[in-house]
């Protein structure tokens, strides 16, 4: 009788032993976050799925796939799967050896080998499902991060703002420079404000990248204003001996914006009529 058939024949026994052992095992410490009822149900589902996979010749069948999807989506720890499969392996070997009391060393090795061959593909499949899912999440997050990493916001004709948040490394600096330059050409921008309020640390490397970006912007024919320089950043920049005198710097975005307005010959006129009226009245009084 093949090993598979033996396992299937002794399904009930293995099942009971497995459930018992699993409950005694570490798996229960997940019960802090997951209700016992749910654990019990998932245990049943896991062992059922294993047996369905055993009975099916092709191995990775629909049930296995469904179970994997479900357990990954629910965010069950991968330790649960590995431990569950481990317990299944030991229980299976034990059960088969108990059924064949005359087992010798060769037979024992044979059983081990065959059970491994049955259990491992299922385990590998489940773990692969996990890692694929993780890979997907990581690449999605990387994409999301990249989108957030260097946005360019056109505020007015000729003026755009690029707010930078978070640490800047070489990869990000490259992305920033590319976005900045292509954005300038696209929006026909005269003045770009780079806001570094959200950059926690400005060291020589970050300053170097910013200077390079500003120089590249100048080559295109636009001007770069560095804004959002906090006191501690001003201190570090001077202490490190970094020379930022080639392009204008301002402490806040609003001050930088005013400078940008001057550079592009623009004024903001208040539409508040009251103020004007008051001035007219004052003028009239002065005349009299």
């Amino acid at each position, binding site marked *: 009788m093949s090993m598979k058939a033996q396992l299937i024949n002794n399904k009930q026994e293995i099942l009971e032993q497995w459930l018992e052992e699993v409950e005694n095992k570490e798996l229960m410490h997940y019960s802090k976050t997951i209700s016992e009822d749910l654990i019990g149900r998932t245990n049943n589902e896991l062992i059922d799925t294993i047996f369905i996979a055993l009975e099916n010749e092709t191995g990775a069948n629909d049930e296995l796939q469904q179970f994997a999807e479900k357990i990954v989506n629910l965010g069950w720890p991968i330790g649960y799967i590995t431990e569950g499969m481990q317990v299944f392996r030991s229980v299976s070997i034990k059960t088969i050896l108990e059924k064949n009391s005359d087992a010798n060393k060769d037979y024992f090795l044979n059983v081990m080998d065959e059970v491994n061959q049955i259990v491992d593909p299922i385990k590998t499949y489940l773990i692969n499902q996990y890692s694929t899912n993780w890979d997907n999440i990581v690449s999605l997050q990387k994409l999301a991060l990249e989108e957030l990493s260097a946005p360019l916001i056109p505020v007015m004709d000729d003026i755009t703002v690029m707010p930078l948040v978070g640490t800047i490394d070489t990869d990000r600096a490259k992305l920033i420079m590319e976005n900045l*330059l292509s954005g300038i050409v696209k929006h026909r921008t005269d003045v770009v404000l780079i806001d570094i309020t959200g950059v926690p640390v400005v060291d020589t490397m970050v300053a170097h990248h910013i200077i390079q970006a500003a120089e590249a912007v100048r*080559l295109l024919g636009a001007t770069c204003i560095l804004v959002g320089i906090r006191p501690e950043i001003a201190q570090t920049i001077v202490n490190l001996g970094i020379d930022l005198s080639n392009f204008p710097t301002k402490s806040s975005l609003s001050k930088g914006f005013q400078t940008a307005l001057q550079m592009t010959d623009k004024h903001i006129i208040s539409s508040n009529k009251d103020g004007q009226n008051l001035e007219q009245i004052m003028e009239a009084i002065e005349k009299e």
Partner: protein
Amino acid sequence: MRIPILKLHDYLLVSIQVELDDQSAMEFQEDLLKKIHNSGATGVVIDLTSVEVIDSFIAKVLGDVVSMADLMGAKVVFTGVQPAVSMTLIELGIYLKEVPTALDLEQGLIKLRQELEEK
């Protein structure tokens, strides 16, 4: 092929539409200086919109043209530098600090007029 240099009142317009090699760049330098001398132009706009590659030698030649033209009393403005070109130049450490730049031909002419008025 020589790069055409167009005269517009007091200005000269140059649009570089071929990939510059070392020789054509030197020829261009010579031609432009001669033309400035002959026409007495006070301003030059060099448009680089269709230039996709600039190596360090071409950059030096172009930078030199600016200083040379300045000596002859003509102000030079570069326009339409492509983002990729700008990035390469910065990476090569060529900052072209003395060279005025503008986004496009229109802005370039405005800038030229401003610079000439300031004198």
